[in-house]
């Protein structure tokens, strides 16, 4: 535990660190773009300079916005997002060269748009707790976004999944934005109802079960998730929402029973879907018997794409072929769903591990932010959004490498797709905003959060961000696990339950 060190530590804003890391991230992305040209045509791409300047200006502008509006924001998050975005752009450009498509230009436009939007979020949203006011608006928005693809006229089915809407010629995946809205709703709902969810209810086999009426909203989400699974034929998105909700429920209540119930519900639903719907069963078949001749040759619904991806990654081996030297274009959707396989082929096992490490650090910085921030809403929001990134990586990379059945989810920042890029940059903006709050030296007097509970801990309030442990007569030392941030609003029960340990 880091209680003592952090409490006595001068908080460093970290903007200079961020600038240094940003230069590194830009060098990575811009360098990769140049290497793609060198690898395919032995020449730096003609639009390279413009690209380099554009990405640099956008990144530095965002860095400037952070200096201006969120000076204490986590210094690692932005460079990670820029780096991953840059690597993704280079790979999409590389696929473009092989297939003579125009994805990279559109992705570049989306990148610019996303980063501007992220800046706007940071400028306009001065305090993340403002979002809590819109808890139920967010729920409505989230549900609408989820069912939008099912509507006639604007909904569109692409590759068997009905997760698209077409507005004015632009295809969007509303679920990507829905995940942010629902994260806001979950955070707001759970922070208000966590006590009843956590404490009330009968006990069964050592598990504290929730009360039936508290189950309502959870069952609603379960139904919506299953609805997405069944009606939109999209296992990935439903897995994403359910994973996010179960994780946030667990964060709010600290009750393993919720995790058990959640997983059981999802497993039951998925099993029922697998036995009822052919496409879900086919996914399992492909997962388990990908290399069988019969499954490989089956079309549609065979393992052809998955196995092509595996072959691509295998041909990359330990060190990869190098940018532009492989044949990632042999895999269908090498620029979107299978961009991980493309990276595995050209950057090798080492490169792909580095990319995964970037994601891991990004998620862990987000969770660190959640631990650091003082208000329960912020904790839940930051924790939920971070976990969403982790789940998305897990579902995509696990699917491509046959760890789990393959489902259609985008790899955050890397994969081609405007909705995903915009949504993830907004997620990053929110994490940056919350981390600014988390790392900011607290003012002398704290304001009560809108709709929040009663501050507790007396002297604990008003201490630096990483806080003083809650002191209620019980000595709290390292190893007890009650580090900074527990001197919070919304946490009377935790203090009570913390004592006997």
């Amino acid at each position, binding site marked *: 535990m880091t209680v003592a060190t952090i409490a006595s530590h001068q908080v460093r804003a970290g903007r200079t660190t961020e600038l240094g890391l940003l230069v590194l991230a830009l060098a990575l992305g811009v360098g990769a773009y140049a290497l793609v040209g060198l690898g395919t045509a032995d020449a730096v791409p003609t639009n390279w300079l413009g690209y380099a300047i554009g990405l640099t200006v956008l990144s530095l502008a965002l860095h400037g916005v952070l200096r201006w509006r969120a000076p204490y924001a986590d210094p690692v998050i932005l460079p990670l997002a820029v780096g991953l975005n840059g690597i993704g752009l280079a790979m999409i450009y590389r696929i473009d060269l092989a297939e003579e498509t125009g994805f990279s230009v559109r992705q570049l436009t989306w990148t610019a748009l996303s980063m501007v939007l992220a800046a706007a979020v940071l400028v306009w949203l001065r305090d993340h707790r403002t979002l809590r006011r819109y808890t139920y608006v967010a729920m409505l928005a989230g549900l609408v976004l989820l069912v939008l693809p099912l509507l006639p006229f604007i909904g569109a089915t692409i590759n068997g999944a009905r997760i698209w809407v077409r507005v004015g010629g632009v295809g969007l995946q509303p679920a990507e934005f829905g995940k942010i809205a629902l994260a806001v709703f979950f955070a707001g709902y759970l922070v208000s109802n966590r006590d009843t969810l956590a404490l009330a209810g009968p006990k069964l086999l050592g598990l504290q079960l929730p009360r039936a009426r508290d189950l309502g909203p959870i069952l609603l989400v379960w139904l919506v998730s299953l609805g997405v699974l069944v009606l939109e034929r999209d296992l990935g998105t439903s897995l994403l929402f359910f994973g996010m909700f179960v994780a946030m429920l667990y964060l709010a209540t600290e009750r393993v029973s919720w995790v058990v119930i959640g997983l059981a519900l999802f497993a039951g639903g998925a099993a029922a879907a697998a036995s009822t719907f052919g496409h879900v069963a086919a996914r399992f078949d492909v997962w388990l018997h990908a290399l069988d001749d019969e499954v490989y040759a089956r079309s549609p619904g065979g393992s052809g794409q998955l196995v092509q991806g595996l072959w691509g990654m295998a041909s990359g081996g330990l060190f990869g072929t190098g940018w532009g030297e492989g044949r990632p274009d042999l895999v269908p959707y090498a620029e979107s769903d299978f961009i991980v396989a493309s990276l*595995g082929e050209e950057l090798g096992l080492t490169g792909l591990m580095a990319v995964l490490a970037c994601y891991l650090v990004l998620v862990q910085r987000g969770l660190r932010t959640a631990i650091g921030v003082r208000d329960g809403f912020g904790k839940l929001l930051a924790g939920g959004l971070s976990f969403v990134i982790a789940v998305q990586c897990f579902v995509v*990379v696990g699917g491509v490498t046959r760890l789990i059945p393959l489902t259609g989810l985008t790899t955050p920042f890397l994969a081609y797709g405007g909705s995903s890029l915009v949504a993830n940059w907004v997620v990053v903006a929110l994490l940056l905003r919350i981390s600014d709050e988390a790392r900011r030296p607290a003012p002398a007097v704290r304001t009560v959060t809108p709709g929040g509970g009663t501050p507790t801990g007396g002297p604990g309030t008003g201490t630096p961000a990483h806080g003083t442990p809650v002191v209620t007569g019980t000595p709290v030392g390292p190893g007890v696990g009650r580090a900074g941030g527990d001197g919070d609003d919304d946490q009377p029960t935790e203090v009570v339950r913390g004592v006997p340990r």
Partner: protein
Amino acid sequence: MNTPLRRLASVVLVMFLALLGSVTAVQYVQAGSLNNDPRNVRTIYREFGNARGSIVVAGEAVASSTPVDDAFGYQRVYADGPLWSAVTGFYSIANGAGWGLEDTQDDVLTGRSDRLFFSRLRDVLTGQRPEGATVETTLLPAAQQAARDALGQQQGAVVAIEPATGRILALVSTPGYDPNTLAVHDTAAASQAFDELVAAPGNPLRSKATQENYPPGSTFKLVTAAAALEDGRWTPESELPAPTELELPLSSSTLGNFGGGGCGADPISLADALRVSCNTAFAGLGIELGAEALEEQAQRFGFDADPPAILPNAAGSTFPDDLDGAQTALAAIGQGSVTASPLQMALVAAAIANDGVLMEPTLVDTVRAADLSVVSRTEPSVRSEAVSGTTAESLTRMMVGVVEGGSGTSAQIGGVQVAGKTGTAQTTAEAAPHAWFTGFAPTDDPRVAVAVFVQNGGDLGSEATGGRVAAPIARAVMQAVLGS
């Protein structure tokens, strides 16, 4: 809420560890089997995407990869393809690497061989595209060209060997084919070319020099004579009965001489019997020696053993087991079920030329990595002790008699003493006989041993004999070697 957050962080860590594990499983643990999956077109793309090594004859590449602007990156090109096709084989997208050095040397040509480990490691570290190694052959272009020219339109094969080292100087099979037609990147065209070659007369894809067996006919009398001399009871001067017709033991049939007459003398000396290729004398000698002695001698020349692994799908030459008297008589004159490839008969001559010591035949001289460093170099090695030095000397004198005053006079070369033996092998009653010649020159210091095989008599058809059809070809090849 921080305890669950920390637990969640641990869960995330576990999730990512699982991902790192599964990525490692795909890209490292299973990579080998995934890369070798026959359905995996990447293997072909990758092999074609890298510069495949050349096959070189006397400093000139007969098979090389040149960069082209298509999906495969490199086009395999065969210079003078039909001349070298029995040696190179082909390398094709549609049909794989087959039939020749392209197949046997595939691992060094692609650069995959463990022998090239350090060059591969260097390629990885420097980011250079891996390049295959170059295979330098032992072949002599003049001998190869002479053999092919002399065979002309006839179907047959020529194998020439340097007796002291086992280096193969010429290896020709006719009709040849142009591997370029199989190497085209248009898979439909390549498949069609392959099918046409399979159906073509004379079966051009199969090398008659190494992949086919034929009855060796009278050239096998060298083995019978060797068995007799090794036995000790016979010398070149030993008298053998040579009737016009020999009654085969325990059989109603008789064996006659070629052309139906006598052998010029009865009894006849062993040397003269070889000189005029007297069937009845050798058949009787075979019965006297017995099947076991013949078989043992044949095996010491390389029959019944694994054929030299210089080219793929090599045919093993055989001397049959459990022969009765009549069969033994036939085997002694190279008929019956004795079979030999032209390569095998070249080895018989080469062993006699090299004081009875049979050297391991080699086709690959040096394997050189892309940076010109030598990966491996073939050193001469002994395959077997076929006959004693004295026997080899006697056989040589007897074979000189064949060329200077016997059935093989067409093999004479002015100013050079040539040793040899003709063969005219009956196959079926209808088909014309195969014409054979095997021999070496010069006799005092043999530089080339050669075996010539002309299928079904070649241009002369049923009029053909080994002396008329095969011996001139052998002379041309030996002259080409001696003149170079």
